[in-house]
């Protein structure tokens, strides 16, 4: 499992799983270096635990990870919170608050909306429009201009391009990779009103104007490729939502 610097102080640690159709899906986490410590955003799925720990150890050295941000409580993204907490005695931030039912008895609660400071950096928080579990929170790091949208801005990729930025993809961001990811992973989109989803998503992009968008399950998207991605997701959400066929006799 390799890593790559997205900016001077944001490291992308990534792996990928084959989807069985010639494509792959990322599992990612991101490390943000602040003045007084490292913030780890998400922790990956359980399958990559040791590899991710090795990568993080190589970056942080003796400084350790001070805080882990769990953007949601779901196996693909937060399966290793306990492992990192044990390794570094790190604080855990979880927008859902302390919750024994999620296996998180002690946490720092940040809101799903608002602005927080940590390690000399300012983070904007927002509840994303492409979400699955409750408490899902997207984070924008003002210092680096990187948006961390978890399940937002995701897409499948060619396994040969796992470590690439969007600008380095041979065919650019392919529409079918965006469509198929969301058809598989956000089942509720068929119940969606696509205008609401897209309006919310475009609003977030306009508000933050990110330099880089760093999803949990996709190649990082550089600023010049964001309009292409947004066009793709608008078309994909509309197609998935329009595929719903009314079936009940009262319809």
């Amino acid at each position, binding site marked *: 499992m390799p890593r790559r610097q997205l900016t001077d102080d944001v490291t992308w640690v990534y792996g990928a799983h084959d*989807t069985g159709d010639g494509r792959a899906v990322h599992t990612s986490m991101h490390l943000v270096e602040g003045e007084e410590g490292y913030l780890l955003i998400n922790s990956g799925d359980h399958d990559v635990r040791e590899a991710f720990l090795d990568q993080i150890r190589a970056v942080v050295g003796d400084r350790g990870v001070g805080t882990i941000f769990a953007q949601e409580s779901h196996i693909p993204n937060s399966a290793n919170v306990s492992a990192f907490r044990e390794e570094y005695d790190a604080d855990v931030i979880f927008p859902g608050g302390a919750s024994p039912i999620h*296996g998180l008895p002690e946490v720092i609660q940040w809101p799903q909306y608002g602005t927080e400071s940590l390690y000399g950096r300012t983070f904007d928080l927002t*509840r994303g429009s492409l979400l699955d579990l*409750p*408490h899902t929170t997207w984070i924008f790091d003002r210092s680096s201009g990187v948006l961390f949208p978890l399940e937002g801005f995701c897409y499948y990729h060619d396994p040969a391009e796992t470590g690439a930025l969007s600008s380095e993809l041979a065919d650019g961001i392919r529409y079918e990779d965006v469509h198929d990811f969301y058809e598989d992973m956000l089942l509720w989109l068929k119940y969606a009103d696509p205008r*609401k989803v897209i309006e919310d998503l475009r609003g977030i992009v306009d508000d933050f104007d990110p330099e880089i968008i760093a999803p949990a399950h996709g190649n990082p998207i550089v600023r010049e490729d964001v309009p292409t991605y947004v066009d793709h997701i608008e078309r994909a959400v509309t197609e998935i939502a329009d595929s719903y066929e009314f079936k009940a006799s009262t319809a």
Partner: protein
Amino acid sequence: MSSDVCIPQDPQEIATGSGEGVFWIEECIEAGAMADYLTKHPDGQGYAEGWYETGHGLHLSINAYLLVGTDKTLLFDTLSPASRDHIVEAVEGVLGDRELDYVVVSHDEAPHAGNTFALMERYPDVTFIGAESGSPVDELHHFEDAERVSYGTEIDLGGYTVEFVEPVFSDSPATLWLLEHDTGLMCTVDSFGFPHYPEDCGKFEDEMATEMNANQMIQYNGRSIQWLEFADPEKVRDQLQYHLETYDPEILAPAHGQPLRGDLERYAEYGYESAKHLSENGALLPLFLTVKKLEESQKGDGDPEAAAGD
């Protein structure tokens, strides 16, 4: 692992039919923040209408259902990590010397799947079942040891036949509902959830002190199914209605509410009403504000806590 906020309930038989019993295993959690919201916040007081008495305690249930057929046994969901001992002891108490043959995880979230591996350790020959939907990559759902099933798959337990059904209000993409054909039990996972009074633990909805209403269901759906804000409520209504027409269930058995029976159309209508309300007003967030309220606060002084009026 145990927790003083989780209150285990004794398993109780909620249907019999041609098998040896369908048992409801409940874990209740204190919903104090929700009670505070309904008691103290102006918006919350509006939602209390018709079902909630100011200052009263509230619980939210986390449910598993154990089906004991004449040949095979099946557990649907495993409770949360906070109730590990409870679920193992409850299953042992019902099954006695019999084996647990199937453990079905409705989806890969801790309050539902939190004790899967503890149960697999206790019953090493058990078959672990998860949904085929979601990512094709088993590792992303921790389904490497699971048999992944599609909607429509049936399992004969002897006396009982279960069928896996497409969900309506789902969060994780790898989600299954379950229908048992003999008793008409339909396990609806994150659909039809609602909080209840502590004295109503272990009761069917129709046995509760106060009849449940749409405001009560909004308290759950608004926080746990946040995508309803982006939904077309007419699609949600259609899918709920289609399920009732197609599967004709007798009992709706949610993961986060008391079991429902009788006039099931009424409950489906509450599901629709809550979807409609949330699509118009936005989801409820952990700080117990609506999205709209928070957006307004950000345009003002940007202090969501102040906007909460706490």
